């Protein structure tokens, strides 16, 4: 199996996640896209770990999973607060700036 397989896959997921962050209006959708990105990165790490034989890549992948969990928790809490205050979580409606 070629190494590039995993890496290309991860790159594709990353790019799709980026598109999702840019294009999506709903805050939760954006968070989901960010999850995609994070997972792509984890896959990358594991692939490199497999390539080099060092186990550090997997360690880091576990770290990423843990952090991602924490981040989603906090992120969704914030989304809930915003929803309570503004009754909407469409990002383009959340701007109060006049410019």
């Amino acid at each position: 199996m070629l190494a590039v397989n995993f890496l290309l896959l991860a790159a594709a997921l990353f790019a799709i996640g980026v598109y999702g962050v840019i294009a999506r209006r709903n805050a939760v959708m954006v968070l989901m896209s960010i999850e995609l990105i994070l997972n792509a990165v984890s896959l990358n790490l594991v692939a490199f770990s497999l390539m080099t034989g060092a186990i550090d890549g997997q360690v880091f992948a576990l770290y990423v999973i843990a952090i991602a969990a924490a981040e989603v928790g906090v992120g969704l809490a914030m989304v809930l607060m915003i929803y309570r205050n503004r009754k909407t979580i469409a990002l383009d409606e959340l701007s109060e700036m006049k410019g």
Partner: protein
Amino acid sequence: MSAVILAADSVNVAQNVAFGIIAAIMIFAALNVVTTKNVVHAALWLVVVLSGIAAQYILAAAEFVAISQVLVYIGAVMVLFLFGIMLTRAQIGKESDLNNKGWALGIPVGVVLFALLAWVILDAFGEDTLPDRGPAPTVALSDQFLSIYLVPFLAISFVLLAAAIGAIVLARKD
């Protein structure tokens, strides 16, 4: 592409085939995550992607990571996402205008990014083949966690604690 085709001739055909199927499913699911008009469907498609990732982990001889992925991401994070969707009164069914006004800008960005990354990857690792390893022993992982990466391990625990408390504080009604 030729490299992939070539790869089809090497040993472990089954591995390659499995990888290819799962990869295709994942890509399709990811695209649906970012383009579907139904929020709940997006979450479910995300579950598919996450599962596919777990499968890929197993193919990459990282079993523990795969199990953790399933447990944490699919078991906890996605449930959290679904709760979040519900609590924010997402409309059940198709929802119009889930995209930004400038969503078209994202396409070239994504494409360029992918092209760039692909070129870099192919340029750097084009010829490498993955070694055939057995499953990674969990003992090795724990050795790393508890010796070299002990401090980050403990830090992670604090981070999780802080996140939990923070989420509770943020989401309180008063």
